[in-house]
């Protein structure tokens, strides 16, 4: 059931139109995405699930402007990013997009506070002190600010990464398996944080995961299989999500 998952009433913040992505050439070519059309309204938390090789990561990379589709268009805030050059894409990542990675990706040479502020120092902006304070209290790492990543637990590192993603108040945060490297307690903490960011700050979050429990924190669940969207609906419990996955896997 491909097609638009109409969320009437909200602006389409991120939108993919007939997006295809093919890797390789000739006989070895693989279609990672086939004519995917989907839109993400602002202020919502969407989870993208799918088995390995379903194209979920590719979709996220393309939505975030990290990869280019073979065909189709991607719009962020009404701007077609597939037509942008490197300079404009860099600007887009600076101003409008935040990232959370499975492996945290903190710079080992910087402490927690410096890691959080890194996007602002790259952009050459002054931090909003109030927002920073609120963020670190929200993620709960105030007492760890001067620690280096090596001195933090996995959960703490990922919470620093969440704060880093939110510090520049991006229009959308893309999270790539944010709980994939964490134990269940830390995992719940981080997912709770994302949930709160959507509820309290009106943050838009798009999360890729293969964990049904993680997906249950979202408002909306998309399931991909073989490069196509096979399910698009409201949030479900983790049990229902598991069943869905079994049906496509």
């Amino acid at each position, binding site marked *: 059931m491909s097609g638009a998952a109409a969320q009437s009433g909200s602006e389409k913040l991120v939108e993919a139109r007939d997006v295809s992505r093919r890797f390789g050439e000739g006989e070895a070519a693989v279609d990672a995405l086939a004519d995917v059309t989907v839109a993400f309204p602002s202020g919502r938390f969407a989870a993208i699930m799918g088995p390995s090789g379903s194209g979920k990561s590719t979709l996220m*990379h393309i939505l975030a402007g*990290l990869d280019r589709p073979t065909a189709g268009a991607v719009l962020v805030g009404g701007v077609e990013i597939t037509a942008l050059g490197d300079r404009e894409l860099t600007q887009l990542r600076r101003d409008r997009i935040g990232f959370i990675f499975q492996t945290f990706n903190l710079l080992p*040479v910087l402490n927690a506070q410096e890691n959080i502020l890194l996007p602002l120092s*790259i952009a050459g902006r002054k931090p909003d002190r109030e927002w920073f304070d609120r963020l670190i209290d929200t993620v709960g790492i105030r007492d760890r600010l001067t620690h280096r990543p090596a001195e933090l637990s996995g959960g703490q590192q990922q919470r620093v990464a969440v704060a880093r993603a939110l510090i520049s108040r991006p229009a959308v945060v893309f999270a790539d398996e944010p709980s994939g490297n964490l134990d269940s307690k830390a995992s719940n903490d981080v997912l709770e944080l994302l949930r709160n960011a959507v509820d309290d700050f009106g943050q838009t979050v798009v999360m890729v995961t293969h964990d049904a429990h993680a997906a249950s924190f979202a408002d909306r669940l998309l399931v991909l299989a073989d490069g196509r969207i096979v399910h698009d609906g409201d949030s479900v419990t983790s049990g229902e999500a598991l069943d869905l996955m079994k049906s496509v896997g």
Partner: protein
Amino acid sequence: MLSLVIRGFMQRKLRVALTAIAIALGVALMAGTYILTDTINKSFAGIFSVANKGHDVVITPTEALGRNTRSQTSPITEQMLAQVRATPGVAEAAGSIFTPGTFLDVHGKRLTNGGAPAFIASETPKRFESFKPVQGRFPLTAAEVAIDEQTAKRHNLKLGQQMIVAGSAPAKSYTIVGITRFGGGESFGGAGAAILTPAEAQRVVGLPGHFDQIDVAATPGVTANDLRNRIRLILPATVEVRTGAQQAAKDTSDLEHNLGFLRTFLLVFAYVSLVVGAFIIFNTFSITVAQRTREFGLLRTLGGSRGQILQSVVYEGLMLGVAGAVLGLLGGLVLAPALNELFKAFGAELPHSGTVVESRTIIVSLAVGIVVTLFAGLPAALRATRVPPLAAMREGVEIPPAVRTRRAIVIRAAIGIAVLLVLRLALGGGVGLTALAIILAVRIVVVARRVRRGTRPRRYRVVPALARVLGLLVSWRGVTGQLARENSIRQPGRTMITAAALTVGIALVAFVAVLADGTKATIDRAVSRSFAGNLIVENSQSGNNEQGIPALVAPALRRVPGVKGVTPIAFTQGRVRGTSNNVTITAIDPRSFEQVYRVEWKKGSNATLLGLDSSGTVLTKAYAESKHLEVGRSISVLTPTDKHVSLTVLGIASDNARLLGDLTIGLPLAREAFGQRDDALAFVSYAPGASNAQVQPAVNRLLAANFPQTRSRTAAQFKQDQSNQINTLLALIYVLLALSVIVSLFGIVNTLILSIYERTRELGMLRAIGTSRRQIRQMIRYESLITALIGGVFGLVIGVVGALLVTSLALSESGFVQSIPVGTLVILLVVAAVAGLLAAQLPARRAARLDMLRALASE
């Protein structure tokens, strides 16, 4: 961004230090060279200002042919001195002698001064004298001498003892009556000086009635300039008249000119080390950029622009460059005295008091160090900008290659051609440049074809193949050897660049070794072919053509029983009218030369030599061809004594022994028109039936008694001397090239440490499945050994082929004999292998120390 770079720096101290040293060593040699030569310059400037103190006007021979071309016969006469004394405004004028000579103890042993020259000097009136006695007095009779303090100390000479002074006259023994000190400091630039009475000095150096110099003092109220102008008017153009200040400036400028050679010589080695350092920096940056792909990707996803990535890597290069350059500059301070010691060890002592660090030294060293580092790091920095943001998400994202558009190639080709043109203007052609142009042209064509077809280059076939072959050396050691071999092939580009750093040094050593071996073989053959006599008599300070042997030696030798013929040979120079460079001139005795020397005639015969008695000349083939001169042509030659002589070309000859200069003339003409008094060599032939066992000892007895500064050599001994001289120079060059080899060792250490860091997981796994620490160490050592041998083999091939190419292209005409010193080359390969094992010590220990669990957990 800058703070991020600084943080990164602090985290990677070892790597930063190793990389900085790579550039610092080259800079150190450069700074050391400048410091040493500046120090020598300044020391001499001090000496010259003392030597010319109290001299209002100084009269010296004109150097008609340019710097350092004084004739052996000074045009300054007693009569000139009388004229000067008669000039109004002259308070005092005195002639003096200052000519190189030889000092010996009573047993005939040379009193050397560590390679510094020794001078025979005459006492001058007090106001002109730069030496003053610290013990005893100046000589009063022709049997007395005053010797300088340094020589006296070194050889423990005391007042009242005897010593021998040898010049152009037969040697004579003198009583030491004084020990003197140079006014400026403890030594006259390291040189020895034996002061005799003026008349005795003139006699000993063979210049009765002549002086090397006239010193003049003005009466009060007459300026030095006025007096100079007055004297200039009355003296001929064969002498220069300068004020004391002008003379000091001229002496200093002469010295600077002579030191220029030393400076250039040393700087060449500094540049070699810098090139090797650049390789290492290039490699280190390439590896670290590859290792930090994920970090760059992250910065890009967080909104970092390409410019910012470029900046961060360039900043890193800048900081590294500054660190390396500063370190190098400090190293230069240490190296300058060490270089001086090195030259001392090779028999060339130069005065150096204090340490002179000119601002030029600081500026040039820092600039060169920083610029080289920046440029070497630039390719990696540009590569870093191409890291896609996606690299933050995934492992193993490849950095896309630079886009090779038609425009990019045209730009590159244009830059290459421009560089060639600049080199061509700067160096003026040459074989190397032609080769470079051909390589460039081929490269352009290959790349252009590749772009048209849209294919990527296939790279690195030689390195893996070579590594596999060399790997056989270690693969018998079992799995560690095999793994080492495979590891060295894994990243052929990296292995190649690491090896290339070593290749540069090894190639240069091999090149020089082949050239030197060929030179020895060439001399050997030339002496065997051309020399038909039995003995060669020369100055016993071998290679000292400047002092040569007294002209009295040849006639004296003729009286030794068993000697049939003696032919003296002298060297001088001149300038052919219509040309701008000086020519080398060999003067021979036209009647006896053919008895001891086989001339390879192109035009003419031995009978032609008789024509040299008057105004005939024989040209070498090379010179005749370069100036399009034929037999029968007449040329006008300017001599060192500022005369013009007209010579007729009588014959053209080849001479692989290089005894014959561009021009060969008769000795009588050389004595009369060129002022050449001493000979350089004398060739002796024995009478039929006379044996060397009888004649050479007799010759030696005569020489020891009358001319102790000379010695006789058989052809075999002569060849051995020549070969020893070449070996000495070779050893000096090896020492200096060793620096670049040391630099390349740091490169191997660096690459190994970085590779080990990369393979942390793999090493952990190897340990986990039972590899011992010892085996890990062995594996790393073997990998280093293979890399070093690849560098060594490439170096040998490039060096040997290069030397053979150069000698067959440029020197084949001159009969150069190519010879390959197999022993030296084998040793060189062993040195490379040992160097590789040495470089692996630290990395191997680090790899073996890795904590297994942490290594496995690391990402």
